[in-house]
């Protein structure tokens, strides 16, 4: 048993020992399948043998009965012949010595003849012959149909006659055909009186008649009795119906003998319906068993193949699932955890056994983000989870927080019914941290780059301006030197003063060039929908706001009239003000970090208000707030608000601020409505 099992085990991939699928049973060995076949074959063979034996026994029994019957029949006939012989011997002297049998005093003889000719005896006629062989009389009286005397020579009767006289005992003649399709034979009984032969009594038997009389009804019902001559020709039969069965028995017909045979044929062997039924039902049953067995085997094979395929598929999925770095967790419709993969367990630090079956709040939900987590949770269960996933702050077992990107998809069972939610979770804290670092780095870099660029520009400008100024200064000093020494040459002085003037002009040109350079970034005015611009600005800073935990409340007035403005500049101002607002709230408790953004129309102006909940602006800062290069921020350039105000003024608007009741600052940015 062990060896085949082992060999078949090799082919079966062993699935990882986790979760639902049971170990597929090893394929049974091949010989396993021959067992039922062998059993069925053996069973059929046994049944067939049993039936055959029964059948044979039946046939034997039938044959025995037949033989018995035949023997009985033969004996019956022999007995009859003997009795007739005796009667004829008794009648003989009376018939041969009596003068006239027809005389009235011969009544007793008549009666005895009559008795002898009883149909039961089988005799149809009695003749008596004298010692010379001449017919002395006959009963029934002799007719043309029967020839005695001369004719005895012709017939086999003469031979019988002579033989009986010689032997002195009854002798049966050969059978001979007579008209009317009859066959007759005779028995010659020699009669002696006082040792002297006085004649013979001849009894004529009709074979046909004898068959008719001597065979009892029950016998003829069961068998066909016929007599055949030595050539095998049937000369008489009890029934004309030819038998079907081959079961027959033939014995010599003695005493007449002389080649006659008594043939007894059973009409028809009894049909054994029960055994036949049994046999056929057995056959059908066996066939059904074999068929069903074969079907079962095919089914089993298919099932096994399917199981194997399922097993390997399961193993494949399992391996895939386990190798994932993405945490997977399934929940039912109530939010109960029904499954977690190893990556998920690694991420949160709880084992699958601990997690499965838990209902919210989960142990890995960060307490400080509980409200939001619940919100996300109910959003998912409500089927409103965004397809790009939700970012959520979770907690490992050791209390470490991490940011996870959660993507949920409905879990559909085989019937197409939703049974829960499957979520994949990716730890994005590292990614976020890296992004954050990169962003800060980038910002710092940009700030530095701006500073460097500005420094470069300032430096170039300084050098360029320095040149004419230095020249002027040198000319000037030279002139002074000349005056001091008193050797003043007027022409020389005039030339130098001209040169000084030229250099002064040159310096002016440089300054004009710088001015022109600055003016190159002039605003491009177009019709602007203020609300749309504000929304766009909010869109730009939203990721930053999310990161800082600042909520932006938008309260935009509807159907504002259009303004003529440079949308990029307006956006720049809005972004700047929002950023400032968020910066101001960096030390405000998270729950209060709300930035309110409103737009409204007031006396021909559109006013954008940005209100924060920061520390407010101390008076000494307020004074210098719009001054260039003034900043309260470590990385600031001190240009933001300055530029904002320049932009506001460029649009013939204003930028003002005021303290917000309840803490914080409100910045108002107003722009005139287009007059057209």
């Amino acid at each position: 048993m062990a060896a085949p099992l082992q060999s078949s085990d090799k082919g079966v991939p062993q699935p990882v020992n986790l979760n639902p699928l049971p170990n597929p049973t090893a394929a049974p060995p091949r010989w396993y399948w021959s067992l039922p076949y062998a059993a069925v074959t053996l069973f059929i063979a046994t049944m067939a043998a049993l039936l055959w034996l029964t059948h044979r026994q039946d046939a034997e029994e039938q044959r025995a009965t037949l033989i018995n019957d035949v023997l009985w029949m033969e004996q019956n006939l022999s007995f009859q012949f003997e009795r007739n012989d005796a009667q004829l011997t008794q009648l003989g002297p009376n018939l041969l010595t009596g003068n006239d049998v027809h005389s009235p005093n011969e009544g007793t003889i008549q009666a005895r003849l009559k008795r002898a000719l009883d149909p039961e005896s089988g005799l149809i006629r009695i003749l008596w012959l004298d010692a010379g062989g001449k017919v002395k009389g006959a009963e029934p009286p002799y007719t043309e149909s029967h020839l005695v005397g001369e004719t005895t020579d012709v017939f086999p009767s003469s031979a019988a006659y002579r033989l009986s006289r010689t032997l002195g005992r009854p002798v049966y003649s050969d059978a001979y055909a007579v008209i009317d399709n009859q066959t007759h034979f005779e028995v010659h009984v020699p009669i002696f009186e006082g040792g002297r032969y006085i004649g013979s009594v001849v009894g004529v038997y009709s074979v046909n008649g004898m068959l008719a009389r001597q065979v009892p009804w029950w016998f003829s019902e069961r068998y066909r009795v016929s007599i055949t001559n030595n050539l095998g020709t049937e000369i008489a039969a009890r029934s004309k119906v030819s038998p079907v069965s081959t079961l027959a028995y033939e014995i010599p017909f003695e005493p007449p003998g002389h080649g006659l045979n008594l043939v007894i044929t059973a009409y028809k062997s009894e049909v054994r319906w029960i055994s036949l039924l049994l046999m056929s039902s057995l056959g059908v049953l066996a066939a059904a068993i074999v068929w069903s067995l074969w079907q079962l085997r095919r089914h089993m094979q298919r099932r096994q193949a399917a199981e194997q395929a399922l097993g390997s598929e399961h193993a494949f999925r399992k391996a895939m699932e386990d190798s994932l770095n993405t945490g997977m967790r399934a929940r039912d419709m109530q939010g109960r955890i029904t499954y977690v993969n190893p990556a998920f367990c690694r991420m949160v630090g709880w084992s699958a056994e601990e997690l499965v079956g838990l209902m919210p709040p989960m142990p890995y939900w960060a307490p400080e983000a509980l409200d939001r987590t619940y919100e996300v949770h109910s959003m998912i269960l409500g089927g409103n989870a965004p397809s790009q996933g939700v970012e959520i702050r979770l907690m490992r077992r050791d209390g470490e927080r991490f940011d996870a990107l959660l993507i949920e998809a409905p879990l559909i069972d085989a019937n197409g019914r939703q049974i829960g939610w499957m979520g994949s979770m990716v730890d994005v804290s590292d990614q976020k941290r890296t992004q954050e670092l990169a962003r800060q780095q980038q910002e710092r870099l940009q700030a530095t780059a701006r500073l460097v660029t500005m420094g470069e520009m300032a430096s170039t400008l300084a050098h360029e301006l320095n040149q004419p100024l230095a020249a002027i200064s040198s000319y000037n000093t030279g002139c002074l030197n000349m005056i001091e020494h008193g050797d003043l040459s007027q022409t020389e002085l005039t030339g130098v003063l001209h040169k000084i003037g030229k250099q002064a002009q040159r310096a002016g040109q440089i300054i004009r060039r710088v001015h022109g350079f600055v003016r190159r970034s002039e605003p491009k005015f177009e019709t602007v929908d203020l609300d749309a611009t504000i929304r766009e600005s909010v869109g730009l800073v939203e990721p930053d706001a999310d990161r800082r935990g600042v909520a932006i409340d938008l309260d935009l007035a509807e159907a504002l009239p259009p303004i003529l403005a440079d949308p990029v500049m307006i956006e720049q101002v809005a972004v700047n003000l929002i950023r400032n607002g968020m910066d101001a709230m960096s030390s405000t408790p998270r729950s209060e970090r709300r930035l309110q953004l409103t737009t409204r129309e007031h006396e021909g102006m559109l006013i954008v208000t940005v209100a924060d909940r920061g520390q407010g602006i101390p008076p000494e800062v307020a004074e210098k707030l719009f001054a260039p290069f003034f900043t309260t921020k470590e990385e600031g350039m001190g240009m933001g608000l300055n530029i904002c105000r320049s932009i506001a003024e460029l649009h013939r608007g204003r930028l003002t601020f005021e303290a917000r009741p309840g803490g914080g600052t409100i910045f108002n940015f107003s722009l005139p409505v287009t007059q057209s």
Partner: protein
Amino acid sequence: MNPPLATPFAHIVDDDEAVRDALSWLFRTRKVESRAWPSAEDFLAAWRPDWRGCIVLDIRMREMSGLECFDALLERGNTLPVIFLTGHGDVPMAVGALKKGAFDFLEKPFDDNALVDVVIRALESNARRQANQETQANVAGLLAQLTPREQEVMQLVLVGKFNKVIADELSISMRTVEVHRSRVFEKMGVRSAVELAQLLAPGRD
């Protein structure tokens, strides 16, 4: 010894024509002869080792910068004092140059007469150096007149040894030493060993 070349000049190297012209004018009003060069390349092409005077070098120029020019001059063994003119923010560079042997630097905008003062000092320094070099050339000429034996004697005299010791070391008679000694004094134009030592002492200011 070409007289015009030997005349000390303040060489002004600046790519700005107005500055060159203004400085030339300024120097002239203080009786300083100057020559102006529009670029470092032009100046280097004309430079000759026997020039006297000083160099006023603008650090920031379009092509070759003042510092590169200074390095090139150092390689060529230039002895002219170099005064750098620096713009705003070039001070660290100028300090580096000072360490390499530049004479001075002035940050623009500078007091023009202060610049002229520095230039005059540089010119004087150069002149002194030139004179030194000439003296040394004279001494070398005097030394060349001495015979090998006289030179041996002179070395020992300079070390401060007595005639008797010199005679022992050179295995000659004291009388011969005295003869050599008087010849050396005569040829070198000195009257005592102290004067001889002063004449030969190197790096005198």
